[in-house]
């Protein structure tokens, strides 16, 4: 089995030769190619070279298109902070006031700013890996997307104190959200991962997610074909997991690093794949032995019912993470798979 077959088999609950292992590695590719991050995130061939090097070095069961939301903020007129040693970040949003978001021109995925660079990288990855390694694209969930237009402070204030305006901004930004997701699929992405901050317990309570954002997820997901995964963005999402089954095209959830995986499985039901939940931020400081032990612990907890993929929670794994820690994840996946007789 190749990675694509392994992952698709897991998503559909079929037997596989070994359990898949994911690691969110974007900027880490620069460690291997020697490229600086501003180049990597503004030049499609450089980004793809990083993914290719990561595949050759580690062989995780996915390749990832750029986890870079600053490109979206920039496409909406925001400013980007470029630093040599970190992923580009939004410096200033395009709209100074929340109401101004409604006047921002909607970006064209094929033409605006660096969005075409991401699409080109996706297309190049598809050329290299289609039906061999799953091509996964990460994009902000529709509920948190407006934070890239107006800033998180303004967005949170609008959601809390001006729900009518918040609803208008959600509707307005949804046009781009759907177009961007569909453009990524057309460029070759096999699966879309949505990091929905508003589904994270540390950001919004359950009733707020259920009342203000879940209906929006339902609406927008129904306009995007293809498999979808929802990510907790790293915190905790168990408080809303039971609300997610039935979302159009949802095939899996990336649990937060603070979530109890056994509880997550129970809440999610048996039809959706559970992914996670090593804490990406702690990976640089752990030893390889610790990563191996923590990986095995998660496998033993979450893998027995099936439809489980070992992986990290949160965003990009920091570049300071020792390569041995990444290999420890793979080794744990292989050891567990062998122990339960995968492929035999």
């Amino acid at each position, binding site marked *: 089995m190749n990675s694509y077959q392994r992952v698709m088999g897991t998503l559909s609950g079929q037997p596989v030769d070994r359990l898949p292992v994911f690691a969110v590695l974007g900027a880490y590719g620069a460690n291997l190619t020697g490229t600086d991050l501003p180049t990597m995130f503004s030049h499609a061939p450089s980004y793809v070279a990083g993914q290719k090097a990561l595949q050759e070095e580690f062989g995780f069961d996915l390749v990832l298109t750029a986890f870079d939301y600053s490109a979206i903020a920039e496409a909406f007129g925001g400013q980007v902070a470029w630093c040599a040693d970190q992923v580009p970040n939004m410096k200033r949003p395009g709209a100074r006031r929340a109401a101004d978001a409604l006047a921002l021109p909607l970006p064209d995925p094929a033409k605006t700013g660096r969005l075409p660079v991401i699409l080109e990288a996706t297309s190049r990855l598809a050329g290299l890996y289609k039906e061999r390694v799953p091509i996964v694209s990460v994009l902000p969930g529709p509920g948190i997307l407006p934070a890239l237009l107006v800033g998180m*402070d303004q967005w949170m204030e609008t959601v809390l104190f001006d729900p009518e305006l918040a609803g208008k901004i959600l509707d307005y930004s949804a046009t781009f959200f759907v177009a961007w997701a569909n453009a990524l699929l057309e460029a070759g992405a096999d699966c879309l991962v949505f990091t929905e901050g508003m589904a994270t317990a540390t950001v919004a309570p359950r009733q707020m997610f259920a009342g203000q954002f879940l209906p929006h997820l339902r609406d927008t997901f129904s306009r995007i074909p293809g498999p979808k995964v929802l990510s907790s963005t790293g915190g905790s999402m168990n408080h809303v997991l039971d609300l997610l089954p039935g979302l159009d095209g949802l095939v899996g959830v990336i649990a937060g690093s603070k979530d109890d995986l056994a509880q997550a499985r129970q809440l999610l039901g048996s039809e959706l794949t559970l992914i996670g939940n090593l804490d990406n931020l702690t990976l640089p400081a752990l030893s390889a032995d610790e990563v191996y032990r923590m990986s095995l612990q998660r496998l033993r907890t979450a893998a027995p019912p099936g439809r489980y993929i070992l992986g990290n929670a949160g965003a990009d794994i920091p570049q300071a993470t020792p390569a041995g820690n990444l290999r420890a994840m793979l080794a744990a996946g292989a050891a567990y798979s062998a122990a339960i007789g995968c492929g035999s």
Partner: protein
Amino acid sequence: MNPRECSELLLAAMINVDRPGAAEIIGQALAAGITPPRVIAEILDPAIVQLGRLWEEESMSLAQNFVASKIAEDALLRCIPDSRDRARSKGAVVIGNIEDDFHSLGRRAVGLFLSAAGWEVHDLGNDVPAELFLEKALQVEARVIGVSAMMQTTALNIRKLRRLIDARGLRDSIKLAVGGAVFNWRPDLVAEVGGDGTAHNAVGADELFLRLQADLPGEVAP
């Protein structure tokens, strides 16, 4: 209603993200003759302390914390119309996100809570060079500088500010508070960047800044 009952109601309003309800509670307390300083000390402060405990237990969301900080700001503005009144202030502080860091939400919450607690807050915003922190602190006679960073890469930029403070011989005049998500994950980073202390959340900033200010030679603990 006595101040304790008012404080409990105020806390409930904060938890229920009920900003209008909180304003009504503060209004009723003032109308009942509770003086503005007592409203802050006996109603607002205890609610904020309780809120901090809930945050520590991870039973509060950012949305609830955000509304709570707004409620605290509302109450402050009603009770101390001019929050820059130095006679009432605990002192001047300078806060901001260190150079290359653009994650402002935590810092803004810290600013609101410090203001609510009676500090004269000078918020320099995001992406602030080390030199500017020190320049502003000297200008406004701040005894504590609070620097926020979300990620390890940007947190390391705080070392420059530490070096500047030391090079100017100001180690015994200005304390350096550091905070942000990365310090909660890696407490050892506080010492690595030269911080004098940290708080796990915005609510704990008042206590931290008071402690750091009291540690300075010539300062009298409150």
